[in-house]
């Protein structure tokens, strides 16, 4: 099975800090993978590189088998095919929920106003925010904003959706509504690569879990594997801390 999105020997350096150190991972159609690990392990940086939002210092990124940077493709077109959900929803403040979702549809995909509106409503329905279509971000709770953020990402029918700690910035009671939406998406067969601390979610829907620490991949395995008997010491310690 060819992967949709894949990186090889990815390294990202900021000044003197090596955020991501020689990482090679990939995700195939329909798969749901979860990257987890302590804060500062490089998960976010890795995702941003995979999402083509930041250029790697070394290494290559392959989208549908083609080296993205070497082939000098139009990055903007590719970004439209890779959905990205941020930790901080980053909704466009001056637009309503509906407007936020419609923006990409109209100005990146070139849909007509009516078409864009229809698709946007569909996307909002999927995340159960259709009643809030005309509300502005400042009028929505964190969880609601995040759900709109997810709608914005999936409305473009991306081939893969990357989630960068989508619930990390939310209060406990607001997390569940976002996780419910994500579980829904996974059940529908969306290709998802998620960086998160929500290991319960991972256990229920992930096909594979990837443990990262200090910029490197330490261990890879199925959720059962991690929950029963991880191999490495670091993974064992981390699982104990989270579950204990």
């Amino acid at each position, binding site marked *: 099975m060819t992967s949709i999105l894949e990186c090889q020997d990815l390294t990202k350096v900021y000044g003197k800090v090596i955020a991501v150190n020689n990482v090679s991972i990939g995700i195939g159609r329909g798969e749901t993978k979860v990257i987890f690990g302590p804060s500062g392990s490089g998960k976010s940086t890795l995702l941003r590189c995979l999402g083509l*939002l930041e250029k790697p210092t070394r290494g290559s990124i392959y989208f549908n088998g083609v080296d993205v940077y070497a082939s000098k493709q139009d990055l903007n077109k590719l970004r439209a095919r890779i959905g990205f959900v941020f930790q901080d929803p980053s909704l466009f403040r001056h637009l309503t929920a509906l407007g936020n979702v419609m923006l990409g549809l109209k100005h990146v995909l070139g849909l007509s106003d009516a078409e864009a509106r229809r698709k946007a409503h569909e996307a909002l329905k999927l995340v159960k925010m259709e009643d809030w279509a005309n509300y502005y971000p400042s009028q929505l709770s964190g969880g609601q904003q995040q759900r709109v953020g997810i709608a*914005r990402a999936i409305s473009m029918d991306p081939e893969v959706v990357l989630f960068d700690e989508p619930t990390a910035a939310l209060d406990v009671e607001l997390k569940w509504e976002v996780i419910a939406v994500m579980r829904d998406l996974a059940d529908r067969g969306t290709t998802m690569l998620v960086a998160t601390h929500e290991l319960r979610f991972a256990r229920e829907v992930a096909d594979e879990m990837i443990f990262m620490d200090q910029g490197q991949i330490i261990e890879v395995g199925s959720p059962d594997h991690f929950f029963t008997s991880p191999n490495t010491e670091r993974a064992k310690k981390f699982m104990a801390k989270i579950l204990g």
Partner: protein
Amino acid sequence: MTPLEQITFLLKAVPVTLAISFLSFLLGLGLGVSLAFMRIYGVAPLRYFSDSYEKFFRSVPVLAVMLLLYFGIGPLVPVFKDPFFTSVISLGIVSGANQSQIFRSAIGSVGRTQMLAAISIGLTQLKAMRYVILPQALFLAVPGLGSEIALLIKDSAYSFIIGVIELMKHTDILRASQRSLILPYIASAIIYVVMTFPAATYLDKWGSRKKRELGL
């Protein structure tokens, strides 16, 4: 002339004053937005140019620029022999530098995360500026722009020195013809205050309100 006639005479010049202010504001707007864009997204030479332009024209008096253009360049380039044109250009050039600073600060306040979110859905940087950053920056810039308009209305008075027939010139004509040193100046001052008041005050209030609404 009765006082009422004098005041009417002064008021006749208001359209010219407002025209000068409005036109130079537009010129400054075009320049300011371009310079701000150049400074944030341009290549090194453009950034340098924008920075230098802003630094220079924020440190020179408008009147000096006006005299330079009218008396210095006028003889060489006939267009600048027209005082109205020259005053609009001078005010606009300087306003461009001020507005560049206003927009840069507004764009900066919008935040990097908005740009990141915009490119994540595939918008080009240009489109992101147009549909995401600028709309928000415009709201943030309103108070600053309000005081800039007020400033231009006041500085339009300088143009009477090179012969433009606007409010200040009318005031001077009254003084000479009526030999009155009281009514023309006081009335003129009040008319200016009335002209600048809405721009300076209401735009500021509107801007603050919008900021709160958007959660900025």
